[in-house]
């Protein structure tokens, strides 16, 4: 199903790389400033190592930033939304999941073509019987 684009703060790797880029530091310079090795920085940025919060904080601080972690309430189940679920035909969803992405989109296209056809027919009839 594809992959995460990882452009910003969605991973430690992207966060560290972004901080280092903004600080205009090489991996080695950042490592030296943070008292660690270039390979540690490289492995984190490559997504091969998951740093502890303390380590990540130390590294981004060395690049001139402060790491802030924010707790946000999760969006738990919503009673209104839950009430809709029993009425949804899951077999159709399972069928769709078996299709390729293009297959899922093509069904939409076919329906749209049918809607267009109906609209055109309706228009013709309206012109014939104003």
């Amino acid at each position, binding site marked *: 199903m594809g992959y995460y*684009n990882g452009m910003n703060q969605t991973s430690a790797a992207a966060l560290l790389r972004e901080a280092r880029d903004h600080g205009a530091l090489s991996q080695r310079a950042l490592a030296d400033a943070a008292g660690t090795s270039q390979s540690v920085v490289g492995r984190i940025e490559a997504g091969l190592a998951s740093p502890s919060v303390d380590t990540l904080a130390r590294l981004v601080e060395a690049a001139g930033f402060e790491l802030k972690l924010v707790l946000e309430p999760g969006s738990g189940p919503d009673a209104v939304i839950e009430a809709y*679920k029993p009425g949804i035909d899951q077999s159709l*969803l399972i069928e769709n999941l078996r299709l390729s*992405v293009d297959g899922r989109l093509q069904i939409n296209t076919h329906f*749209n073509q049918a809607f267009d056809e109906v609209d055109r027919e309706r228009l013709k009839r309206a012109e014939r019987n104003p």
Partner: protein
Amino acid sequence: MDLPRMVAVLHAHNVEFLVIGGIAARVYGSARITQDVDLVYARSDANIGRLVKALAPFNPYPRGAPPNLPFEWSARTVKAGLNFTLATTLGAVDVLGEVTGGGAYENLAGHCVTERMFGHPTLVISLPWLIRLKRAAGRVRDFEAIAELELLQDLQKHTP
């Protein structure tokens, strides 16, 4: 809606865009039919220029507006505005500079997956973020769609 052509045209012009809304829902297996495509575009001058050029041959015009309004599809118009609900000869397209609960392209791009749509690697908002955006929009007509997306999320978790 000629989605394959729309996608091809935007890529041919190197437009920075990502897909949200009903088409993104279809990508994740939604059974709901959508008659328009919702795109979030990057607001840089260069990208606005590319977007305008890409869609210009398809006569973009405000959807549902009376005919003969002095509407000009141009970079100036797009820069002066933000979100445009358009009718084009390729079909209905919502061209969005920002979305409720998600902000601009730059904010959303990090919460996308890349899917091949008709042969083109295309940024599509991730399923959790699609749900989040629909929740943030708070429209009653989206409630069933959100329920369906949450079911799809569960199904995906349990599908090997």
